[in-house]
């Protein structure tokens, strides 16, 4: 067994109504996904300020994924539509600044999609692990 195997730190923002419940379902169904995925529960995917994403990167996250209800199913009617526009622009901007585009992702995942949640996290962790550590956006001033 390799001792110093690199494990990327993944921050997953999950909306309370769909994706967080989806993560719960994945757990109940005994579906495994990497333990280095750290879930942060937010009331709605729209709660995620672009600053949250950048801060996560600054503090050492290697990948950030946002999960919310499917468009049209938002608990607050339209929150995820705004998220969609915001994150499309933010990710495009990060790419423009030379940050690997595989480090960021938005995935819609409902409360019934436990399997999709686990699969998404497995895939995303694998993709980020292939990129290696995030050096471009980390900020030593923000680390504890």
């Amino acid at each position, binding site marked *: 067994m390799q001792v110093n195997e690199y494990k990327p730190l993944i921050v997953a923002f999950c909306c309370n109504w769909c994706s967080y419940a989806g993560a719960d379902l994945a757990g109940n169904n005994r579906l495994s996904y990497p333990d280095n995925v750290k879930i942060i529960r937010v009331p709605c995917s729209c709660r995620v300020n672009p600053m949250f994403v950048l801060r996560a990167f600054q503090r050492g996250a290697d990948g950030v994924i946002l999960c919310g209800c499917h468009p049209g199913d938002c608990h607050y009617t339209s929150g995820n539509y705004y998220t*969609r526009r915001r994150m499309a622009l*933010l990710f495009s901007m990060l790419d423009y600044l030379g940050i690997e585009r595989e480090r960021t992702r938005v995935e819609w995942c409902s409360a019934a999609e436990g399997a999709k949640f686990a699969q998404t996290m497995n895939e995303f962790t694998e993709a980020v692990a292939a990129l290696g550590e995030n050096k471009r956006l980390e900020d030593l*001033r923000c680390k504890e």
Partner: protein
Amino acid sequence: MQRITREMLTSKAISLLNDGTVSAVLGWREGEFSYDLTPSLFYTAEDIEQNFVFNDFCGANFSKYLVTKTLGIEGKILAFLKPCDTYSFNQLLTEHRIDRSKVYVVGISCDGMADISKIRAITGDGISSISCEPDGLKVQTIYDDEPKTVSYEDAMAERCICCKSKKHVCYDELIGEEGEENPDCNRFGKVAELEAMTPDERFAFWRGELSRCIRCNACRDVCPACTCEKCVFNNPNSGAENKAPATSFEEQMFHIIRAFHVAGRCTDCGECSRVCPQHIPLHLLNRKFIKDINTFYGEYQAGKEVGSRAPLVDYTTGDLEPGQVFEREGM
């Protein structure tokens, strides 16, 4: 196009001041150097006659000054706005930051303002005075006996070369001729150039540019879209108020967030790059957002119409998914 002269502006200002239409005039006063002008309020005709300045260095966008200046004054303020300034003015009206009834807008036609750093690149340092003559700018430096002539084309600011519009979108009165919008200005040329680079090249480019940032906040202070009374960057607990080691990509957070805060509201006036003491091309960040908004959600020009809905506070059910951003052709 007929050049706007100082006399045209002062005579207009004095007549409007004398007949009581306005109670103050927002104009330019001489600063430390003849190319370094200070925006200032004038209350009397004598003051205007003696101290009002207008030349090719009047690049400052006056619309933001009106947010605070209209608050503590009785009556109207006369503001001279160039075409690009009127877009910012309209955007501020849309955001209810300026009371339209307190401003008398005199639109002035503009064929581009001069950029002192471009002149300095031609004549060298030590500029003691500059005068605007019909055939060009006469630049006197302390090292030369004779003044050097720099043509207006060579001195023109980058943002004016790819000017998006010479048309005033808002005015009470106009001095000079009304121009046209210029859709072929190629203002996204440099953005497209950067997009065509590899991620490593882009990262190297931006690290080189942004690591020069000294966090003076001049870009925020001058930006007509940044009018919040409480700004997130004034928070002493943000942990990012001081400089990081030059080896890290230190100022990215500040600049990404600042560009994001004005995304969809930025009229592309170019003030951020003009005032940057480190000459960071900050407008390229804003233009990236404008270009993306135009391609993802349809053409949108902030400030073109009062009351238009900014793209980030709007949505359609068929919008592009964030994952599709990079799947499109050529990205």
